[in-house]
């Protein structure tokens, strides 16, 4: 098939133009945030929050308010619940996270099953970017603007918070505030990602681009740009591929992201497996020379 045709044909459908736009936007936003998640070690937290927003989304639908508000309440609520159980019982943190988010998620599943059939469980679980409504697009745009502006303004403080919260605190920076900012952004982007790849795969959007970029760069700003580039590339190409093979859009996007990660893992110039192997060998040779 003609390459130009391959790219141009889907654009004749309005739904494809919308889908590509939304998934690219979500790719940018989630990727930017994923750098902080990777560096702070919050992957599990990302997984937890993205699942825990489900009942909020369903309730928001029932009450006819924006999804983002419901998701925000339950996302932050789940983290408060995790913090409370952790500090007041002898249960370890990963166990607490596991039990809280599945509890929230299960509650959401029950809610969906008892709601009128207009809420489609599979759309929430696996995303439905090809059928995204205009109001959902507006919501995604608003979430994206809020997230990107917040990250731009608080970038240096958030990096310091991830890197050395002790120092941040000692010079009077309010780290409790930064903690909840990062958490709120996580809840919001989980909703945005939910539209595209669905609740189950949204954690990939919030972790994989950051991890890929982390292997490719030793500078934070550079890492963010690389993450966003890989996120947008995966989102757009994933949407195209899903159109042509008539497969799951979310699945295609995340598979592409994972492939990019694997390429980085093997070929990254400094932190890749091949680079490390050759570095180890050159170290061995120098040692032999010294003998």
């Amino acid at each position, binding site marked *: 098939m003609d390459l130009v045709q391959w790219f141009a044909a889907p654009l004749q459908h309005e739904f494809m133009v919308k889908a590509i736009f939304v998934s690219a936007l979500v790719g940018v936003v989630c990727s930017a945030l994923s750098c902080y998640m990777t560096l702070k070690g919050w992957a599990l937290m990302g997984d937890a929050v993205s699942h825990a927003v489900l009942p909020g989304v369903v309730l928001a639908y029932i009450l006819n308010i924006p999804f983002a508000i419901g998701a925000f309440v339950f996302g932050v609520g789940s983290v408060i619940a995790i913090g409370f159980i952790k500090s007041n019982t002898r249960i370890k943190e990963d166990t607490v996270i596991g039990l809280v988010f599945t509890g929230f998620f299960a509650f959401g599943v029950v809610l969906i099953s008892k709601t009128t059939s207009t809420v489609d469980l599979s759309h929430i679980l696996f995303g439905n970017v090809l059928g995204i409504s205009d109001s959902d697009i507006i919501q995604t745009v608003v979430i994206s603007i809020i997230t990107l502006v917040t990250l731009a303004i608080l970038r240096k403080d958030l990096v*310091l918070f991830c*890197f050395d919260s002790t*120092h941040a605190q*000692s010079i*009077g*920076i309010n780290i409790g505030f930064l903690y909840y900012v990062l958490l709120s952004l996580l809840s919001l982007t989980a909703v945005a990602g939910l539209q595209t790849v669905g609740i189950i795969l949204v954690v990939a959007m919030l972790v994989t681009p950051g991890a890929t970029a*982390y292997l490719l760069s*030793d500078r934070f700003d550079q890492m963010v740009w690389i993450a966003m580039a890989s996120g947008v590339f995966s989102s757009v190409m994933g949407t195209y591929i899903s159109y042509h093979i008539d497969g799951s859009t979310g699945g295609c996007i995340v598979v592409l992201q994972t492939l990019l990660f694997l390429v980085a893992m093997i070929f990254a110039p400094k932190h890749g497996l091949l680079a490390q192997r050759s570095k180890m060998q050159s170290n061995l040779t120098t040692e032999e020379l010294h003998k």
Partner: protein
Amino acid sequence: MDATSIDIENVTVAYHGKVALHSASLQLKAGTICGLVGMNGAGKSTLFKAIMGFVKPASGRILINGLSIRRVQKSNLVAYVPQSEEVDWNFPVSVHDVVMMGRYGYMNLLRIPRSLDKQAVREGLERVGMWQMRDRQIGELSGGQKKRTFFARALAQQGTVLLLDEPFAGVDIKTEKMMIDLLMELRQAGHTILISTHDLASITTFCDQVVLINRSILAYGDTSEVFTEENLSRTFGGSVGDFSSAKSRLTQTNLNQGQEEQ
């Protein structure tokens, strides 16, 4: 220089009902280097946390240069040099980035450095001999260089109270000597320096004051008076360790150099 810099009165700190520090009192004058000596879990880091305002004392009062902790934080008075184990050395930041973090407290919300900030960072890096290395990612440094980077951050912060947590652990002798010289300079300039350390031998070489801690402050004052074997055995519960036999690495090198010259 006679002003009291660190003023701790009857401070008790408890975590979840367990007392970590019991009615500790301590007055340190400006322009001193003070060694903080105690076993693991004796309350050294709790005392540091209390001074930096991370834990709220259940009772008592802490003043730094006559200011409450909240105001101390806002005015960047206390600079902290962390233990190497506390730092994520794979984090994608350069030496220069880390030292610039010492200036955040002076900047606006966006943390855009002004020329004053850049100058302070450069000065800090030059004083520890790290300006040439400023673009390195912090994981590429040696143990001593890592330590000097965080020391430069504390210098750039320009606080008058310096807290150092095990500053000489895993550090080469050149760095140790450089840091001690710098600490002496800072003392001259009227800074107050509190050093938590296991290296008992080094204390006598450059600390003019010593604080002995074991769940409470057992004794503090001039090194010559407080740093006695009797006090130390109270601090360490009987085992003074290798205090009497160990010599500071620095004194050893000095001796060696002396022999070579002869």
